[in-house]
């Protein structure tokens, strides 16, 4: 995904969930920002899987351990529980089969960390409600016809899918438009309305 670091407020949250020296697979590692952050601050044994060849080549040139591959087709080659954490950050909505991908993440990692843009955010709802058009926001800058994001979901949708896959939510964080964490005590409907991004720590 082509988003700059300022927009990737979720990265700090994701990194905060990972203890030092963990074995981490970053699925959709993009330009390698998360892997670099984790290597610098947590000395993790990090690997990346990235769709764009350009992204991969740049990562390898920077000394990161990344291969070119597709989350939809290439996760099957990884062994069960081969990693402490498998991260899917801002990529779930761009996969062809999010359910299968999530299932694979839970198989490969002892824990899975998933972050995604919340389609239930009030701005999105407002845009559709008043303008009657597919929302184009700072977070979701694409038009409906050229977006790589083909499977949007809301925080509530995601929680349902997690249940369906027999996994449990160990931790969840919603971030507002400024990247601030929304209070933990808030009910799901509140998060679903005000959360622009969501980060989930899952286990099965």
């Amino acid at each position, binding site marked *: 995904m082509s988003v700059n670091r300022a927009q990737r407020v979720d990265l700090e949250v994701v990194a905060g969930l990972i203890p030092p020296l963990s074995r981490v697979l970053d699925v959709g590692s993009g330009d390698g920002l998360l892997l670099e952050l984790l290597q610098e601050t947590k000395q993790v044994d990090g690997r990346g899987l990235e769709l764009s060849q350009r992204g991969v080549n740049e990562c390898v040139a920077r000394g*990161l351990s990344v*291969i070119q591959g597709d989350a939809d087709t290439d996760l099957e*080659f990884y*062994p069960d529980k081969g990693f402490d954490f498998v991260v899917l950050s801002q990529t779930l909505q761009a996969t062809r089969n999010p359910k299968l991908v999530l299932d694979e993440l839970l198989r490969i990692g002892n824990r899975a960390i998933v972050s995604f843009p919340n389609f239930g955010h009030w701005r999105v709802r407002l845009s559709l409600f008043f303008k009657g058009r597919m929302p184009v926001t700072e977070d979701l800058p694409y038009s409906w016809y050229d977006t790589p994001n083909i499977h949007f979901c809301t925080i509530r949708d995601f929680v349902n899918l997690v249940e369906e896959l027999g996994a449990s939510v160990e931790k969840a964080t919603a971030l507002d438009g400024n990247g601030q964490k929304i209070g933990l005590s808030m009910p799901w409907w509140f998060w679903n309305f005000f959360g622009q991004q969501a980060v989930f720590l899952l286990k099965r």
Partner: protein
Amino acid sequence: MTALRAAKTNNEADSPSSPVLRFGPDKPLKLDAGTLLSPFQIAYQTYGTLNDARTNAILVCHALTGDQHVANTNPVTGKPGWWEVLIGPGKIIDTNRFFVICSNVIGGCLGSTGPASTNPATGKPYGLDLPIITIRDMVRAQLMLVDHFGIEKLFCVLGGSMGGMQVLEWASCYSERVFSALPIATGARHSSQNIAFHEVGRQAVMADPDWHGGKYFEHGKRPEKGLAVARMAAHITYLSEAALHRKFGRNLQDRDALTFGFDADFQIESYLRHQGMTFVDRFDANSYLYMTRSMDYFDLAADHGGRLADAFAGTKTRFCLVSFTSDWLFPTEESRSIVHALNAAGASVSFVEIDTDRGHDAFLLDEPELFAAINGFIGSAARARGLAS
């Protein structure tokens, strides 16, 4: 000139310009063919200095018609070393920092025991009396060289094409001796199409009446025509259609019109003839047979019950694979299947596919993206190995 160079090649086989490590009857080389090769010798070149901890050694494995002269002027051709764009003082593989070893493979013709070497039992060149040599045999010999230097663990083993096969064999057989592995433009097996091209080359050599069943030295001859044809056919497979057309198109060679004959009307014909002719000056025909055969026999998965991932089970070696989009000899899919096997084995692996129209030979050329990948990989491996930059 040709005769002079030919004599030089032959001479290089027994008494090369390189340092030579000789193994007597007490240290035979165990061959996959089921026999022992003894005595035998390895010719090699080194660059840079081995550090006190012996942790900065890089082994470079050469390709089918390569040799140990990776970063120095070639004594036979007078041309620069075949990977001098990459290796040398201040280069990507910096010989001020690393100790680089490159040896002529067993079966080769520049000083390691091969078919052109004198068979001590007969006093004549081995010819086809030399047992078939496999990639694993080459690696076993290299291991003996590495042991000679007292190197417990190589910092990196790298090579392209047949050199890449040796890298994979090293990483599979002796993973505890390899800290990082960099196989480029290669595969875990030789495909049917690749075997087919090699067979055409071998048949061209053997069809030359000057081949004399492999005993051409005894007849004072060399199967130059056959070997040149073999090289011409092989050379096409090292390039891509796009690059050939970009370079030569249908351009005519030193003429304005077709001659309505079988002279080299087209530039591409002239180019290939030149490639064939210069090759026979530097390479032994029997060695070509042995080298091609070693690649044909290579099938790493077959050596591990048909499951490639088992070839790398439990490996701690860090891998980086590189392929080129226009390489139709070792297409990206070959590298990708190795990557998937390494993933299944839980290995640390990077994989870069480089967009170029220069075909298989791209690995020998000045390819900035290749160099950037090698630089990044070696740099991070060196940090992990605790080598000062």
